């Protein structure tokens, strides 16, 4: 008989417990057990990046990790970037402004890859943005508008950081759930 396990994950700040098959990937657990469908299934191989989420702040292919492995973790999906009132966060706003989504299927994963990338506060060139997003495939845009959006979001974070901290500010706007090193 299929072994089931109770797994508790804080998804976008809300603790969710589901008892489901022990063999479920985090992606299936989110989509089928918890009805959180913004992480998408695109390949099951870890290649396309449509299922990218943050697990304790780290970018993760949710199709390549078992839900049971991350019991107790904090998971952020693209829907978790959206504010409670439905409005978009600055990165999402730049995606919107730059027409960075067409069919939109890669978008949730792309947003999470970009969020993970921007979390270190480093300023990247366009080439470096492309480099750090190469694990997320898009079939519609040709990537230019996505790079535009991420570049603009980076600019915005730097401006607001400079405004808040002055020139000495470290520019880091880390996601709240980010963790250091291998604390686990």
């Amino acid at each position, binding site marked *: 008989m*299929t*072994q089931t*396990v109770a797994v508790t994950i804080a998804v976008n700040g809300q603790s969710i417990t589901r008892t489901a*098959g*022990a*063999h479920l*990937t985090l992606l*299936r657990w989110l989509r089928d057990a918890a009805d959180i469908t913004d992480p998408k*299934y695109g390949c*099951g*191989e*870890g290649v396309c*990046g449509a299922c*990218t989420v943050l697990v304790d702040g*780290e*970018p*993760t*292919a949710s*199709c*390549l*990790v*078992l839900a*049971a*492995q991350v019991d107790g973790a904090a998971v952020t999906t693209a829907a978790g970037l959206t504010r409670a009132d439905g409005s978009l966060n600055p990165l999402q706003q730049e995606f919107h402004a730059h027409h960075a989504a067409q069919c939109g299927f890669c978008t949730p994963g792309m947003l999470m*890859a970009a969020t*993970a*990338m921007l979390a270190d506060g480093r300023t990247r060139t366009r080439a470096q943005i492309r480099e*750090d997003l*190469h*694990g*997320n495939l898009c079939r519609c845009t040709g990537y230019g508008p996505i790079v535009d959006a991420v570049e603009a979001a980076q600019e915005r974070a730097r401006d607001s950081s400079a405004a808040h901290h002055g020139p000495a500010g470290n520019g880091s706007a880390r996601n709240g759930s980010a963790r250091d*090193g*291998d604390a*686990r």
Partner: protein
Amino acid sequence: MFIRPFRFERAERLADACELLRQHGEDAKIIAGGQSLMPMINLGLVQPDVVIDISRAVGERDLTSADGYLRAGALVTHARLAADPLVRQAQPLLSTAASRIGNARVRSRGTLGGSLAHSDPAAELPVVMMALGASYELTDGRGTREVRAEDFHVTFLTTALEPDEVVLSVRLPVLGPGWGWSFLEVSRRHGDFAIASVAALVRLAGGVVVESRVAAGGVSGRAVRLADVETGLTGAAPDQIGERVGELQGIQPLSDAAASDTYRAHLARVLVTRALTEASQRSAVAA
């Protein structure tokens, strides 16, 4: 999506994983970062009965340096190998190769031990280990043994691990004074498994090569150290490296959808020359 159900066991320590492996036999698989195992499970290429999770096991997450050697625990992630100041300083060949693995997701979850135990001939880390003459500490939970990289990697997805053994740590020499290094790889699409990859180390003295180490990945069932090339290089000036590197000996490239055997062999030879040249340039700067 359509995975045959399996049992899930969590090992608190790596030693416990070995006990679980003995309990469940060959239908059990170890999972750490899952970056190699999970694609195979999702594609139905592996159908384990039991999956033993070591991703939260205690220990083997340390990086230490002593007596000219770097020791890395099996559960150290690629991201950490790439970014840790100790690795970057002590063995930049390793940190650079780790930074080229897959993408940010693979690096954040994938582990050193997992990559070595998977033993893909096109993967970055085994090539580096072969070039460096690294050795791996293995355990069956009751004791440990040390195996050299070239004895560990047998052939495609096959290692010297006994059915109840796991990789505990890796021991490799730190970059010695005057050495230069290089890691080069080519894939059809950026970030994919390489068609061919090369790790090289060169030490120049008096403007000529006095010592070198070079290994190639993707051109045999396992990463291979190219001893003939190393021997033939001694006494060469950096600009003579190209003419000293002949047809590569001891490689057995395969043809597949990504490349033919002849192209792999050709590409490996080009990359060997380029990597040795780059390494010698770094050596010249270091000296």
